[in-house]
């Protein structure tokens, strides 16, 4: 039964991941953004565990566990603490208004699907077509980083990009080797810590987390 419903469930999780990326793009409130990011991490955990069960590769179970701990528990907790300390809870400002952002998002999704189509036709894994969705997720997170002007959503966008890459890796090559996995996880953790420090610095200098203030650091 798992062999029959498994691939469909993976397709479903891929769709939910894309849904969550779009929801993050259209979200205005910072707290909901973090919750959506945690939800994405949870979906990733379920997918990795399922692919592990379907293909019989046991190192994917460890991968899934690491994902659960890191992306569903640790990182959202760090972000929540950061928000409380920096005292930012309000709405996110966008550089272009939300309907136009979503239109651009649709165009990116079409592009991503078309780019991934020939590649997914070559691979013979259990989740071929989800490569397009993963690529779309990455592009959408990048878009989110570009169109937000406050620092915290940009950080979340960066982390969501990593989510998309992880999903692509699980889909195309049955997960990365454990060494690479741990290395990437460590990179992300360190990156988040450094960004946290950076955020404090920005706040001290400009008294606000609006990254448009960084323009003042220009030469003239």
């Amino acid at each position: 039964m798992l062999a029959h419903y498994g691939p469909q469930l993976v397709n479903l999780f891929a769709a939910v991941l894309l849904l969550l990326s779009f929801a993050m793009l259209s979200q205005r409130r910072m707290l909901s953004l973090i919750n959506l990011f945690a939800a994405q991490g949870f979906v990733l955990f379920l997918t990795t565990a399922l692919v592990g069960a379907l293909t019989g590769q046991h190192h994917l179970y460890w991968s899934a566990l690491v994902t659960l701990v890191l992306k569903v528990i640790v990182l959202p907790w760090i972000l929540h603490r950061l928000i409380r300390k920096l005292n930012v809870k309000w709405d996110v400002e966008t550089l272009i208004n939300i309907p136009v952002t979503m239109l651009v998002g649709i165009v990116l999704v079409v592009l991503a699907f078309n780019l991934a189509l020939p590649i997914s036709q070559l691979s013979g894994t259990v989740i071929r077509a989800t490569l397009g969705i993963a690529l779309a997720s990455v592009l959408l997170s990048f878009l989110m980083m570009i169109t937000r002007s406050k620092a915290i959503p940009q950080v979340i966008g960066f982390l969501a990009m990593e989510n998309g890459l992880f999903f692509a890796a699980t889909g195309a090559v049955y997960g990365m080797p454990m060494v690479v996995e741990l290395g990437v996880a460590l990179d992300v953790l360190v990156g988040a810590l450094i960004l946290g420090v950076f955020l404090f610095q920005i706040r001290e200098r400009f008294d606000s987390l609006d990254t448009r203030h960084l323009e003042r650091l220009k030469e003239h």
Partner: protein
Amino acid sequence: MHLNSLDAALGLVSVWVGLGLAGLLAPSSIRLVSRVLFPIGALTGLALAAVALPAIFEPAVARVLPLGLPDLPFHARLDALSAFFLLLLGAVSAGVSLFACGYFRKGEGTPPGLQGLYYHLFLASMALVLLADDAYFFMVSWESMALSSYFLVTSDHRHAEIRRAGYLYLLMAHLGAISILLCFGALQSGTGNYTFQAMREVAPSAGWASVAFLLALVGFGGKAGLLPLHAWLPEAHPAAPSPVSALMSGVMLKTAIYGVLRVTLDLIGFPLWWWGVVALAAGLLSALYGAVYAAVQTDMKRLLAYSSIENVGLIIAGFGLTLLFRGFGMNALAALALTATLYHCLNHAFFKSLLFLATGSVLHSTSERSLGRLGGLIHRMPWVAWTALVGTIAIAGLPPLNGFVSEWLLLQAFLFSPGLPHSYLNMLVPIAAASIALTAALSGYVMVKFYGVVFLGQPREPRLAEAHDAGPWERVGLLWLAAACVVLGLVPAAVIGMLDPVTRLLASSGIAGLARGWLFLAPIAPQRASYSPLLFFVLTALLVALAWLAVRAFYHGRVRRSRPWDCGFPGLDARMQDTAEGFGQPVRHVFEPFFRIERSAPTPQDVRPRYREVIDDRIWHWLYLPLARGVEKLTALVTVLQRGRISVYLMYSFVTLLVLLFLVR
């Protein structure tokens, strides 16, 4: 002597020309023009429609006319495509001419006799464009169409902005004409023979065919109002008198569609698929742009003009879909898309003319074009209001009227496109369907704004209390067009049967054979999609009537009149309703990147605060103004040649002579 349909059509065209010239006999007599000439013109239009209808089903008839230059006589031809558009021209112009009998008055710029001349020459030249079978005759008729409509647009030439609108119109028309001429040049492929028959037989190479297609799209698209060549439409349509606007929007834009259909599907023959993508993209963009701009207009005729841009965009999108399917050899689907396109041409001709004529009546009785000074006219002008309601429901694409049928067919064509060979194209289908759905919903919004602000609510100016209803001639014209909207909506299977020969001519396939009788419209198969507007209408009417009767039977029917709810504030007046700008605010907010808005807001210190917002066409500032500046700079360079001294001019002639002698050597 057996009179074939082509001869009959040409005869009726000459009747129109004669009527026009007859107007010169007594140029200032309004009675001659409106009691004699225009009614006869209307009858001629009806006769033309009656001749064209059977001609759709007959094989093509051609003839060489004894007019034209000695070596280049005019060729005329009546085949299914021409006959369909002639039917459209005849039927719509009959209604408009009847309206015009009661509309034209003395003392508004051009004398009535001259207006009659231009009007009938306009009609005649449009008919000749549809009948022309060689490039020379086509261009002559096209030019006379442009010139006569220019004179009609500038009828009230005392106002500077009307003259300016006319100038812009003439300029764009001529740029389009140059493009069409170049297109014919590309089509004749070096044979030197400019008849359409020769162009059909020559098979141009893919490169030249593409060049011809693009030139045709630019030339005819500019006349039809396709983006970005649409700038003349919102200026010229409001400037012209309302019957002329109705004819221009309803019929003249369709002759441009006729032109592009004739060139691409008949003269070139087999289209390439990527032409379809270009046309589809241009059409969808036009449609969305037109709808969005129409929603923020404050002048009722400009609103209708932008709505025409939207509908032309939909027609060109349908045309693009036809080319796409035909390019891949899917003839049945191409026939479905082409049927939808042609049906929408017919529908738009009727409901847009109806709406323009209604605005004409409103303008006549209130002298107001601005939406901010109208309102509540349903009480004073019931005939106009109720026929305009039919037009509003039709243009919003709601069942059971005609606008819904063409939209339904177009959406079916999008939905049932099976896997196209290229993956990008497959993804284009959902996005195109979504754009069409969005445009249709926006047009509903625009029409609620139009009808609600003009006819409903309270009058915004006290002067509106003296408005009078339309006269008898105007009522007949409005009723004719409204009845056509209803009929075209209720018996679509018959109309599709009429369109069958046209699609067989252009796309080698038809869909009428799959229909399930006259009651149901099932273009592909009944299980896949089926719609019966007559049943729909009957059932809705039945349910409404039963509800009303049931309520009356069980409960009393007492009514008491009183003042409206004012929330405790005693000073409610007519200025507290939504203005046109206010009604358009949501669209302005959501689609802000489309517009170029200049705002001036009051400061807190202003004693009499005024809030001003001007919405301009973005494309005007991005494309037209830089082009105009570039042309001026170029001409400034050339004026260097003008010295004013005779010796310099003689030197020019001398140098030219020397160069020519060298070349001939």
